[in-house]
């Protein structure tokens, strides 16, 4: 077999695996629908404003209702130091 045919087989295998992952994705998506409806009801009923990911800093836990200066307002000259906040862009 030619070397280029081997390359083609390899690429087909990788792309095939990617397509298999898309199937995992669609199954996960279907399973998620019900949970999203429930979460929507909870958010509406309790008036929640944010998703619960990092809980180390209050301004990361509640991004949308925090001040943009909250990370540096604990005392004069304070600097931001929580690692989880490096994942989010400052709220404007």
């Amino acid at each position, binding site marked *: 077999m030619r070397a*280029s045919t081997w390359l083609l087989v390899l690429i087909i295998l990788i792309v095939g695996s990617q397509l298999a992952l898309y199937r995992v994705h669609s199954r996960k998506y279907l399973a998620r629908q019900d949970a999203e409806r429930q979460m*929507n009801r909870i958010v509406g009923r309790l008036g929640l404003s944010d*998703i619960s990911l990092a809980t180390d800093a209050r301004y990361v836990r509640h991004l949308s209702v925090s001040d943009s200066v909250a990370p540096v307002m604990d005392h004069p000259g304070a600097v931001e130091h929580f690692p989880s906040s490096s994942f989010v862009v400052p709220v404007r």
Partner: protein
Amino acid sequence: MLLGNVNRHLNILDYALGSLWRNRFKNCGVLLVFSLVIFIIASFRLVTSSLDNSAEQVLSSVPDITVQKMTAGRQDVVQRIDIAEIAGIFGISEIKPRIWGYYFDELNGANYTVIGDAAFDAREQLPGLAIDYRGTYGERAGVSPVVVGQSIITSKNLVVRNSFSLFRPDLSLKSFYLSGVFAETTSLVTSDLIVMGIEDAADLFGLADGELTDIIVSVANPTEIDTVARKISERIVGSRVITKQQIRKTYRAAFGWRSGFGLACLLGSIAAFIIFAWDKASGLSEEQRREVAILKAVGWQTTDVMSVRFWESVVISILAYVLGYLMASAHVLVFDGLLLKPVLLGWSVLNPPLSLLPVFHLSDLLLIFSISVLPYLAATIMPAWRSALVRPDSIV
């Protein structure tokens, strides 16, 4: 003519693959590092797209307007009498007082979000919200019912017991019994929640009678939200009014390339790319020069040699691209972003079960392609041209 051209390039590709195989250890190393760079960028993008999408879907029912009060640049309590100030605004369909805040558990260093709900009823708590009710077992005078998220169960070790206490500001204890647990599937919004009656929350936080943390306002007509928000801010002095639109806007922009971690991923990829480019441009080895000289001596043209080098770069970069993206997809879909989770959660003591469902956008594929494959191909043009200029008589 076309078929002949295709055949010619297939032959050159075969030769390029043979050439790559002869230096397989070096080329496998390059492929591995390049794949890892693409894996990191793609993983970051898939995780953030998943969070963006989840926030968009889940937070579609956030309150129309949240009213808070600011004093000296910090959030302060709102007075219950402020509700009367805004009750007359035309267009408001419902006003709900609320007390919520953070409780730092000194025993384990965890932060909980405590929500005091005005309509929380000990007998008929929050129906239809995927809560596993435990009944009123444990109910007795002075012990209040709560519904908690999954992380609280682990953190407060509520698997074997159903009551616990939290400290008031004056360090006296307030006792609670567990009347329900939010389903694990809803952890994205409930993981760290302790939901209780509004009076219990006021008691826990030591708030005076009539003090609230915020007021939730529903507006009958969504197009009037901004107008109602403006009127509220005029009637309550020093208020901060947050609309549904602002909350959604925050999450649309929150997880982006401009975040520190996004920049770190980009800078890392650029650094790795510079190393590749340097490796490619740092001159030809003696063996490569001899190979080119022999090829030219047997009749190969400069364009043919450049084609070989071009195909080598294409094979490496395309393979690295599809392999890196495949690994990133598996990382996020199957392993729920296992490697990025520690960065995402930072120093959080609570560890919410995170189920990521990325959104695959063609634009992301093109973006990652353009910041990885294209620069690599561009960086190999010069070395390819230099290698093709080797004269046969200089070596042979």
